[in-house]
């Protein structure tokens, strides 16, 4: 193997690959998965929580979903500490744009700037890449609802449906089969839950293991809303989709 080309991020291997970037993607492949689906009237983000111990007491409302600005949010897969840094950077960038131009940052510009940061860590400085993949969901007046996926290399793409994290290949191919244009948010939620239930490792799917967030326009005011589903509501959705399995009897 080309082991001697592993240790530095800033050089290519003889086959033309960046090993450190690929190893970062490996790390993400071991983390909890996240799914994003673009619907006609919103974007749906679903995440799998890896750590569900009773002892965990988080002060934050969600573990995998983060709000970047009032009109952009993201789901995270990978090393959470790396994600925190990038999310902070994204938030600052969005606010600086709003301060200069007095209008909300277009979603693609935000994604692009974050990916530029990630790319910097693959080309200079000698620091390792960020071990995080993001699914950005947002709305702006130029392109409406959008979903973007970005990875440690700094590449990003706009998607109608995307998956990152563990079993993302399987999830992505399932989404490719079942996704239809013009889905409503409800249908998108049902599809996301169905795909996640099939690709998740755990035997029983409960509301505690999942997080669901939706980005949509408020009917009355037209403002962009980011809503994290409460555990009770999520439990009801799972039951409606026929996905809850009773926990195995001890």
């Amino acid at each position, binding site marked *: 193997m080309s082991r001697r080309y592993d240790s530095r991020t800033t050089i290519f291997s003889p086959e033309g690959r960046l090993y450190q970037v690929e190893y970062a993607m490996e790390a993400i492949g071991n983390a909890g998965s996240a799914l994003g689906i673009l619907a006609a009237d919103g974007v749906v983000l679903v995440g799998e929580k890896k750590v569900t111990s009773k002892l965990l007491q988080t002060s934050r*409302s969600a573990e995998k979903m983060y709000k970047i600005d*009032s009109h952009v949010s993201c789901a995270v897969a990978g090393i959470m500490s790396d994600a925190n840094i990038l999310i902070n950077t994204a*938030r*600052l960038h969005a*606010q*600086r744009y*709003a*301060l200069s131009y*007095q209008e909300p940052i277009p979603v693609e510009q935000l994604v692009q700037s974050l990916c530029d940061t990630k790319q910097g860590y693959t080309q200079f400085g000698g620091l390792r890449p960020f071990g995080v993949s993001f699914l950005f969901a947002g709305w702006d007046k130029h392109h409406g609802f959008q979903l973007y996926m970005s990875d440690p290399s700094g590449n990003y793409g706009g998607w109608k449906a995307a998956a990152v994290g563990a079993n993302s290949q399987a999830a992505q191919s399932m989404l490719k089969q079942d996704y239809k244009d013009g889905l409503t948010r409800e249908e998108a939620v049902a599809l996301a839950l169905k795909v996640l239930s099939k690709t998740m490792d755990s035997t029983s799917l409960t509301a505690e293991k999942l997080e669901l967030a939706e980005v949509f326009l408020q009917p009355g005011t037209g403002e962009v809303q980011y809503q994290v589903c409460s555990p009770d509501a999520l439990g009801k959705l799972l039951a409606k989709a026929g996905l809850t399995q009773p926990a195995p009897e001890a």
Partner: protein
Amino acid sequence: MVGKNCFAIASDRRLGVQLQTIATDFQRVFKIHDKLYIGLSGLGTDAQTLYQRLVFRHKLYQLREERDMKPETFASLVSAILYEKRFGPYFCQPVIAGLGEDNKPFICTMDCIGAKELAKDFVVSGTASESLYGACESMYKPNMEPEELFETVSQALMSSVDRDCLSGWGGYVLIV
């Protein structure tokens, strides 16, 4: 001005450059969140820029802490931001009014370099401030209900700006 579990914040509408009136609908009272408002008198451009910078800071605070800023905290933030420019200040005198915990009204004012002044009854700023002090002092009563507070604030504002040639062209009163 503080009332019973409510507050009022008011301003005039004139934007002028010495004797010339540029606008008669200039906004000087800005919302930070539902229970926190800031009024900025003084140089128009500094008022707008300062407000935009405060929105920047407050939005980041909301994203990180997942809650709105308390009025006392916000006042400290404004004071710090003003003092950062100690030797090249924003020519603005803020008036901050908000409802804190248990909807207890909070008001304060500060000078253009951030010296906070808390008050229990009313705070004023602007070219007509001396006149306003007099009017508020005579018309203020503790624990006014919102309707009475509105009347009091409007009368105090109108009578003071009428005696000041640089203020006027209407008024804007907000009760929370």
